[in-house]
């Protein structure tokens, strides 16, 4: 199934669940098992900063948040990619709030943990949220779904040249946002 059809199927699933049918809600919930799994995977990459009890609570809180906002899913990415942003924000907020640092890990994991610890990509997601929806769609599809401009054009029903133009506009805007933040951080 091509990405376009796959996103459409995800969108239909979400729309059906919003209709209130028990079976469609149940089917969506099965897909959302990715929430606790993504949280656990990311937590492991961070050196298990949260214990299992904390992760269990976080999984429930994140799921409730996704469930309440599922009407905002626009079928512009896979459901999992859309859900991942929630998981990332919830986990990083929890880690920041608790003021935790990654724990000691096995030597073979250490390099990976250090790299993960060094970068919190929250500022990238926040900057992306500031773009216009049309620019944001193209930038996300290009990088997060690794689509070509032809594929993006087909999905969004625009020409490949329009997709390129929106992409350039989007990353140019991102550059401005990120440069301004950098200046704020380094007076």
């Amino acid at each position, binding site marked *: 199934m091509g990405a376009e059809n796959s996103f459409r199927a995800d969108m239909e699933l979400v729309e059906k669940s919003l209709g209130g049918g028990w079976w469609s809600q149940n089917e969506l919930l099965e897909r959302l098992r990715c929430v606790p799994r993504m*949280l656990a*995977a990311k937590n492991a990459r961070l050196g298990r900063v949260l214990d299992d009890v904390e*992760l269990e609570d976080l999984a429930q809180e994140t*799921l409730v948040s996704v469930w*309440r906002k599922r009407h905002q899913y626009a079928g512009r990415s896979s459901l999992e990619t859309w859900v991942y942003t929630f998981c990332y924000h919830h986990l990083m907020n929890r880690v920041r709030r608790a003021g935790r640092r990654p724990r000691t890990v096995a030597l073979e994991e250490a390099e990976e943990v250090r790299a993960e610890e060094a970068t919190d990509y929250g500022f990238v997601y926040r900057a992306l949220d500031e773009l216009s929806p049309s620019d944001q769609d193209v930038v996300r599809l290009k990088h997060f779904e690794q689509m070509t401009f032809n594929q993006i054009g087909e999905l969004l029903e625009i020409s490949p040249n329009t997709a390129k133009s929106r992409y350039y506009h989007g990353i140019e805007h991102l*550059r401005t946002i990120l440069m301004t933040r950098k200046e704020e951080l380094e007076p």
Partner: protein
Amino acid sequence: MNEELSSKARALLEAVAVGDCRQDEAAVVELARRDESFRTRLVELDSVRRLLDETSEEARRTQKDARSWIGAPGEGRLRRSVGLTWQRRFLGARNQRIALFGGLLAAGLMFLVYLDSQGGDAEELQPVWMGGEQVELVHPRGTVEAFEPFLWTGDLPEGGEYRIKISDAAESALAYAPLLEHRTTEQQWTPSTNEIQLLPDRVWVEVCVIARDGRELVSDVVLASR
């Protein structure tokens, strides 16, 4: 700055950014050598693209790892979190009839209120909220000595208010009948001692910003234990 770049420079930047032109092509190299603004912009745009690549790569890697995390903490409680239990499936039909009856009754009452309001002053236009879009529960979160006081941060639109709902953690966070519910324009609330004592030791706490017209704008839902 944009105005410092010629139209040729802008066209080349766009061509490089979308992959129609490589950075080592003669025209790009030559312009970068002569024009410092172009050179700087080229480097900055490249940094943005690399940052997006890193961010998306990190997301893809975690999603891939997640496939092997079958039975992750919290996976067994998903159904209960959103109230999608088998009991609801079988009680659903009866509840739907009750909801339909209640809905019809409410619609009738609203119609009477509407008739009563005709002839009065023209309805005031609702302001559009342009404020912040965050609300965050500060206390309680996680395990705490005591639930009270309930504290949160956030921005209120004009005429808006905060709604705080407390539900049993053994039930769904989206319960229609919370154990406690309170509306306020303050950023804290302390229920009565009696109300606090009646709460279970593990609860869902939801704080939500409600617009003047009753719309839910933003919310934060957390689990808390004492």
